[in-house]
């Protein structure tokens, strides 16, 4: 079942510029989907349509089989089901302490204090941030802020979590911690959608990939299918994963052919192919 589905949505800014054009974006329940695109391709704009922050100029959005309506009650329901983690945690963390920030969503839903306390504890534990409840957000590092922002969404127990550039601005270790966390959350049954331009990470992480360019979805498929089409990838101002690029150069320029296209996308895959040849 498609847990998110947009049907032909277009979004025009008040000045007439077109941010999205006839976008059909589908996410199957329980999967991990990556939306690839250069800066300004429209990824964040698309995400804001999922929970009804933006209303499409034309077209409809379905979340969990239900058409998104824009009255207060429906929006409240949709936003509980679908949580968005924003790119800059400083935009998202608004309360004076970590605990109060994580409790912010559940409080808005109107849960009992007991329930909220449980959820805050559980969410912080899941992201590995127990024991910082009383700290203020500005006392945390970038990676820690990101984890708290994710905990704030987890506390609402969403079915779907949408993350805008989850690893941007983080150090390598912090980034891989976040990706590992997302993997675990997905194992726990949460459907995960991320936007990124980190092409090296995508094959490791996503089961399905969309490429977005200038407000349109120009390609969809598995990572292998996507990166097979080198021209489209490069036209969208993206590139091949480094390891695939190396294989391509070795193949075309040095005639050291470890394998024919499609080139391996991950280190593990490349290692296997090289060992087969040597």
């Amino acid at each position, binding site marked *: 079942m498609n847990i998110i589905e947009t049907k032909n949505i277009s979004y025009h800014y008040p000045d007439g510029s077109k941010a999205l054009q006839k976008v059909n974006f589908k996410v199957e329940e329980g999967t991990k989907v990556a939306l690839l695109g250069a800066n300004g391709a429209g990824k964040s704009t698309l995400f804001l349509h999922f929970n009804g*922050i933006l209303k499409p100029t034309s077209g409809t959005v379905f979340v969990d089989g239900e058409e998104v309506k824009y009255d*207060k009650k429906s929006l409240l329901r949709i936003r509980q089901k679908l949580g968005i983690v924003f790119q800059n945690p400083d*935009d998202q963390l608004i309360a*004076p302490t970590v605990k109060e920030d994580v409790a912010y969503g559940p*409080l*808005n*839903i109107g849960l009992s204090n007991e329930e909220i306390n449980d959820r805050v504890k559980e969410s912080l534990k899941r992201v590995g941030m127990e024991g910082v409840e009383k700290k*203020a957000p500005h006392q945390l590092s970038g990676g820690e802020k990101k984890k708290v922002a994710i905990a704030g969404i987890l506390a609402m127990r969403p079915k779907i979590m949408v993350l805008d550039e989850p690893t941007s601005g983080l150090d390598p270790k912090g980034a891989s911690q976040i990706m590992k966390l997302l993997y675990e959350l997905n194992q726990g049954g949460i459907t995960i959608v991320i936007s990124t331009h980190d092409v090296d990470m995508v094959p490791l992480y996503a089961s399905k990939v969309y490429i977005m360019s200038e407000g349109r979805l120009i390609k969809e498929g598995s990572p292998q299918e996507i990166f097979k089409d080198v021209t489209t990838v490069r036209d969208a101002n993206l590139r091949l994963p480094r390891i695939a690029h190396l294989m391509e150069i070795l193949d075309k320029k040095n005639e050291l052919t470890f394998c024919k296209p499609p080139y391996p996308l991950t280190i593990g895959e490349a290692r296997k192919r090289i060992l087969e040849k040597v």
Partner: protein
Amino acid sequence: MFEDFLDRYAQSNAIRNVNTYYKVLFGIITMIVSLVSTSPVMPLIIFSLVSFVILFKAKIPVKFYLKFVTVPLTFASITFVFMAFWFGTGSYIYTLGVFNLGVTASGFNLGFLVFARMMGGFACLAFLGLTTPLPEIFSVLEDFKFPEELLEISMLMYRYVFVSIDEAIKMHHAQETRLGYSSFKKSYQSMGMLIANIFIRTWIIGEKSYVSMQSRCYDGTFNTMDDHDSIRSIRVRNLVVLALLESILSIGVFLTSSFRIF
């Protein structure tokens, strides 16, 4: 940064875990006693007393506290001088010799009283600011039925003051890198640009935060958790000590009420 230190001490001082209500009650009542005093004696005693608590009970470093005190001290001194010269009536007890300026006894007394009250009040506020994290003060104020709107705005301000300071520091560094502060005139221009930019940045951050709040089901009211210390968990002994202390201070105010220097 100064604000940063203030916040850090509030989070980790020797009396951080004393009941918040107790600290707020002590701070506010002592401040009121200092303000109602009609002679400068009690406010100055309160200033010394509270400073003593800050330095030796909360264990705030002397150097930092002295630096902190200079700010109100400067203002209070200026006020004192101006009032001594311009606010009194009667005959001069000291004349400057130019422009027919001089100090009158009533002006001097009034100025000194204001000076003392300012320092006494400041010490009480500094006590609250240095020993209690702001979020906890907010929750106590909420319990005391402080207007919700003001509290919400204060809470958001508390959060975004730090974000804005970070932004400002980054912009300042970027300007310095491009020699924006190399001369007096350029400094003024750069500072103006920085301030204008902060306003724009604030607006943008505000809009982004609003979107992220909406995503977490914001409905127009800023809900907060109400789990914190309770006023009931203050031990009776401590309450008695507080009551005794404030009574002694009040009696002091009464006894010294007619004290004047001139």
